[in-house]
């Protein structure tokens, strides 16, 4: 399945390069290439995941390689939604390169033994838990992207030095709305993800909470986004400060996702990066 994933990577790279070119030059034809490459990459990626699932016999979201690939796939899906809903093409110039990097690392990563997770993923809830959490993280990434764009744009407006970037970024209120709705979607998914994880853990071990670093970080992340949404909805904290919170929240997401590999704990199943 490596060759298929390599093709996916090629498509994403084309999309990334054209998104950046479109961002710099604002050419519609270039943007169109970027969008078609994204669609083609996404379709192939979906096929790759399904094939992985059938060959390995487990849901393709368990080992590090699978996790990265799945995360990239979720990001593309979320990015496509954003593009469709907000026509915010600028997002692609930031997102597609990252997605390409994720797929690239997935290609290099050790495929891992294919039978190990059989006992863990046997329960139906486990893949649901991981999928929900991955999509929550993808949504939080969009919040992060939107926050960064907001800060850049706001800075330009304040300094009155409109650089090339200024003309390419979407309007402030659009970015703001994008950040808010992504945060709401992300938090909903994360809540459901945490809940399913708890139920799964209860069924298997008889306890909800293991006090391991990943769980603590996840709880913190959950809290930050809850605060973000509450503040945004009461309009106390529009704009810059909310944007900084979006950046902070994503730092926590990264800690949850990768930090626990370094810290160890219950969520680390041997060689694998589980959830």
């Amino acid at each position, binding site marked *: 399945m490596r060759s298929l994933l390599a093709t996916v990577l090629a498509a994403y790279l084309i999309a990334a390069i054209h998104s950046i070119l479109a961002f710099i030059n604002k050419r519609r034809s270039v943007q169109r290439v970027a969008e078609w490459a994204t669609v083609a990459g996404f379709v192939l990626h979906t096929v790759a995941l399904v094939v992985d699932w059938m060959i390995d016999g487990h849901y393709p979201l368990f080992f590090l390689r699978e996790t990265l690939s799945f995360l990239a796939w979720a990001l593309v899906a979320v990015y496509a939604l954003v593009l469709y809903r907000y026509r915010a093409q600028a997002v692609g110039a930031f997102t597609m390169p990252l997605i390409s990097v994720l797929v690239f690392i997935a290609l290099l990563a050790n495929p891992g033994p294919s039978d190990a997770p059989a006992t863990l993923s046997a329960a139906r809830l486990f893949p649901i838990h991981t999928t929900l959490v991955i999509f929550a993280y993808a949504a939080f990434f969009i919040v992060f992207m939107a926050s960064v764009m907001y800060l850049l*744009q706001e800075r330009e*407006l304040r300094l009155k030095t409109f650089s090339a970037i200024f003309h390419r970024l979407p309007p402030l209120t659009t970015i703001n709305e994008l950040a808010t709705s992504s945060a709401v979607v992300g938090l909903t998914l994360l809540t459901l993800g945490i809940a399913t994880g708890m139920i799964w853990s209860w069924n298997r071990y008889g306890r909800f909470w293991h006090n391991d670093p990943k769980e603590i970080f996840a709880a913190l992340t959950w809290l930050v986004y809850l605060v973000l949404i509450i503040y945004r909805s009461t*309009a106390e904290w529009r704009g810059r400060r909310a944007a900084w919170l979006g950046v902070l929240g994503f730092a926590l997401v990264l800690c949850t996702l990768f930090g626990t590999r370094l810290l160890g704990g219950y969520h680390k199943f041997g060689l694998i990066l589980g959830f």
Partner: protein
Amino acid sequence: MSIILVGVNHKTAPVEIRERLAFSDEACADGLRRLVDGEIVREGLIVSTCNRVEILSATMTEQLETGAGRLAEFLDAAGRLPNGFLTNHLYRHTNDEAVRHLFRVASSLDSMVIGEPQVLGQVRHAYSVAVEAGTAGRILNRLVHHTFRVAKRVRNETGIAANAVSISYMAVELGKKIFDSLKGCAVLLVGAGEMAELSARHLVNAGASRVLIANRTEETARRLAAEFGADTVPFEQLDRALTEADVVICSTGAPTYVITELQARRSLGRRRNRPTCFIDISVPRNIDPAVGKVPNVFLFDIDDLESVITSNIREREREAERAELIVQSEVMQFQQSLRLMDVGPSIGALREKMQEVARAELLRQRKRLGALSTEQEAAIEALLLSTVNKISHPILNQIRRFYETTESDAPPPKDLLELDE
């Protein structure tokens, strides 16, 4: 056939001359009918705007010089000027250069303000006048339609019209950068100066739904309000109006600050932090610069606007360079399509003639073939025709290519092969 363009524009002639030459629609149609005689000047079109008067025409290639002379005389006469008076102001372009010039004019590359959108409409209007006068023929029809396509391409593929280059339009650009769509936005004019009025007009055209006007002399405010369907606000109730407004344009003649930081903060609180865009086009400034430090408030004074406009003009100039490349390649394409226009039909006629010969031969020999079923007969005809087509295809292509690439006015292929006798 050749294309000639003769005219004056803002770079070659002062306004005193341009205004004498300017054509009204009727004068334009009358003039065209007089000018286009069907012998020397075959087709004609006049573009007359405040920055340019140009005559575009098609003549036979041999009569190019005479035709150009006619056009110059025509312009002298139109301005009631002595013959030859305009010589120093006129420019004259022929063929490719004329095509390029028209493309550049319609794409707004030759305008005083690069990228201004009006000129394309003016060219379109000039064309419709020429069509009505019956002076736009085969060549000009094709040229003008190609011109529209080029202008559209330049507009879509470059950013020459992208960024605001006038103070009054900056309000729209800044508003769009903050509020996405201006639909549903409220605009507050503090002071009813001319510039504020113009800005408000642009904002309303861009979708702003509500205009409030606060002015010291209520008379002026009311007059302006009637024009916009706006509401007037007494100056004492400025705070209330600030709460409602998304875009505030300030242009009073007051010597002090009319809007203070405290006012801005309070109104923002009441707006539940919805962002506000303040534009201060008055000198001395009427909005305390400290207002710009309030979060979610964006303040622009006249200098900020000027500097943004300067950088926008530079951006347009950069984009114009890319537009020139598009024009260049389109001129070449037009050249080619013009040649094919002459050649295409004769090549079709050639092919038909050959098929005709084949059919005639079949008819002549038909008796010798004896009794044939309908299918057999059809098969023989198909065989003959496909043989003729297969043999002639590369030759016809060769001819077509020759006319596409050659620079000379070679005779059309029909005469060349003497098939018409």
